[in-house]
């Protein structure tokens, strides 16, 4: 059994300690937003926030996250400024990689609210999109960055599953 904080709520899971977090999320908790793409930490489709960093859940044993905080695409709530920018810009094509792209973008903006285009490219180089939605990812991320500048920074880290908005440090 492993306990951790998932999308703002404590959870305890049964999976064996070596089970990658991705399969705990998908098979045991049936949270299907984080995707399986390569199983080797190469494509980023499985990205989740781990204490605020974008990590590859397909290669992270669940034992390693005991007591830590994990946020998945579901935890962003759907109204997150980055998600809104994604919808506004029609970023997705097939859409399979986009949960991971959004998670990595949230992590980037948390660390650097005003990233340059080069910084965006460097931060998202770990997230493959075979449909080539890259130009729209940059466009949407820049829009999210601007809209965040005009709002409460806590908005970025809002977790829909928790009752109240929490400051960044608390959730990530």
């Amino acid at each position, binding site marked *: 059994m492993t306990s951790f904080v998932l999308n703002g709520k404590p959870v305890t899971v049964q999976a*064996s300690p070596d089970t990658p977090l991705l399969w705990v999320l998908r*098979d045991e908790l049936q949270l299907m937003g*984080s995707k399986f*793409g390569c199983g080797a930490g190469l494509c980023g489709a499985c990205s989740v926030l781990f204490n605020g960093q974008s990590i590859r859940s397909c290669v992270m044993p669940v034992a390693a996250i005991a007591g830590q905080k994990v946020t998945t*695409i579901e935890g962003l709530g759907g109204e997150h400024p980055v*998600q809104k920018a994604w919808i506004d810009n029609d970023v*997705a*094509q097939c*859409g399979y990689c*986009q949960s991971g792209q959004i998670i990595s973008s949230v992590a980037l903006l948390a660390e650097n609210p005003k990233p340059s285009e080069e910084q965006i490219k460097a931060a998202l180089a770990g997230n493959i999109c075979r449909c080539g939605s890259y130009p729209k990812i940059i466009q949407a991320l820049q829009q999210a960055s601007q809209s965040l500048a005009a709002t409460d920074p806590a908005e970025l880290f809002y977790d829909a599953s928790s009752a109240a908005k929490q400051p960044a440090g608390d959730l990530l």
Partner: protein
Amino acid sequence: MKMSRRKLLMGSASVGAGLLLGFEVSAKAPVPGALSDSFQPNAWLQITDDGRVLFQLHKVEMGQGVMTSLATIIGEELDFDPANFEVQMAGVHPDFTDPNLYSQMTGASASVRGSWTSLREAGAAARALLVVAAAQRWGIEPSQCDTDDGRVLNSSAGQSLSYAELASEASQLKPVSYQLKAAADYRWIGKSVARLDSADKSTGRAEFGMDVVRPGMKTSVVVRCPHFGGRLESWQKDSVIGLDGVLDAFVIHSGIAIVADGYWQARKAAQALQVQWHKGPLAGLNSAKIRRGQEQALQQQPHLVLQRGDIETALGDAREVLDVKYAAPYFHHSPMEPQNATALYTLDSDGRGNHCEVWAPNQAPDICRELAVEYGGLEHANVEIHTTLLGGGFGRRGYPDFVAEVVAIARQVPGTPIKLIWSREDDMQHDYYRAATFHSLKGAVNPQGTIEAWQHHIVAPSIIRGLGVSMMSVNLPPWVPRVVARSLGKWVGGAAARFDPTTAEGAKIPYTAEHVSVGQIEHDPGVPHGFWRSVGFSYNSFASEGFVDELAQAAGRDPLDFRMQQLADAPRQKTVLQLAAEKAGWGQARAGLSQGIAVAQPFLSHCAMVVEVSVVGNQYTVERVVAAVDCGLAINPAIIKAQIQSGIVYGLTAAIKNPVTIEDGRVLQSNFHDLPVLRINETPVMEVHIVDSLASPTGIGEVGVPTVAPALANALFAATGQRLRELPLRLV
């Protein structure tokens, strides 16, 4: 409304000025999933009296945007905002057969062009019935009514009724005549309607095949022989039985299936499995031997697909003949979602298989059904295929081998839903690759500085040969025994292989040379191959447009002028070339950049690209790609732009990244570390310009791919003087 009373309304011969007469045909079969109490004027639409307007999407959504563009087309004529449709993925039904593909396949960039007429007629016919229903209610003439986004209006009396309020009356009506809108009246077509799938795909809610969950579901993986055509020699079942979470392991047609509680347990068991394979007929085959086989095949007499003038004499008389070879390697599809499918197989009271339900991200629901019939030992009527969203397709999911596997596995554990998941390694090592091809090009220019002679011989395997069985199976009625359908299909595929129209796609040059000969030679080394985004164009455009550049150089001419002068019979190619050149600033590259250009006419569309590169030593960077496309009427310009960008990224990956290589009859590579794909930090600036047109819409999903590689090769020549004739493009 009962099925027996359902009438299907079909548009037919045009009467007078654009007036189409609706007529009835009896329903061929119930539309899977249709509501029993709705107004269902045709296979695509249902309107309920509680306000649901359902659109059965008969093409699969794999990123190319058909959910939005096809809803836009039918919504335009129905006069209903496409954003308000409840879209359902269609099941298998004869009315959903593609007029160009003779199956329910999604491919060949055929979705919009093949549905343009039928969907407009379906929408208009339904609207006409709703108008008649309203007119009857109000006791006025239909001509006194108008519609506005889901409502019929009687403007003079200030009355209106919603489509929902009219559904029940409309369902009782005989078909009536109807008229299609004039382009000037379009409200949604041409307006970049927002994608209908954006919200679900930005929140993790979108359901891909990988995300299907059924009560009591278990997970399966298959361990396959890594050598193509190899077979099982022996295996030790006790190497996996008893491992954590493992429920069963057994042999199926493609390998050893392991069933476990979850994916991780199944995957760990697959790694622990002790199995011995017989390498099969391709043992010892490698990429170098494949090349030698292709070189030898060039000696064969080709099947000519384009011939004019007298090529032999023209080449014989030429002062100087350019005689070169081009080559493209095997290449993988790697959609982001690895292959997968879910199935539930159930038995009747006598313990015989009597039903199978399949959920699969696929590009051919009818082929999926045939495979479920075959591998499940079932009747067609007892198979239900549910198509999910696809995490990319690119042609790969037109080969639903994963459905055959999941049905074979589910049949062994009846009553338990089984989700089969391929690993990325499975996906890359058991693909239906873009074929490796080899090209002989010979040509000469004349003193006027134009092409005098052009000969192109293509050595490639046939796609049609392998498709015969599927195509015959889906087209012969269910009462024809499947064994007969399959043998007939195999025979037809074999007989058609030599003439396979996909082989020479993109090789029939549009240029006005006097002596032209293009021919194809079927040669198959045995590595599985198939449709790969843009198919024949993906290698033929590379060879043709590279060679045109070589002839331009031989003539001492500018590559753009050289092409433009010889496109007298191809005005739309001229337009896109001119537009791409103008927008890119052809001939005025910034210092340190070099330009290359190419044009193609894939899937009835026209596309030209200018690529700009910078070179340092033997390393290059693609800095900018400027594309111009004419795909007829632009249904959704934003989606068209995204698709061209998508094609550029896909085509660039194949032009510059590691290819698939064969060793000992198997694929050497296995994941994104040794088959890398283009990432965001490697992606050039991309500009897409769309030609204004009112012509019928043509293909878009694959149209951006073919011109990238040749335009890049031509740019690299301009930069370095090195003529690269083999993919991937590597400077020495």
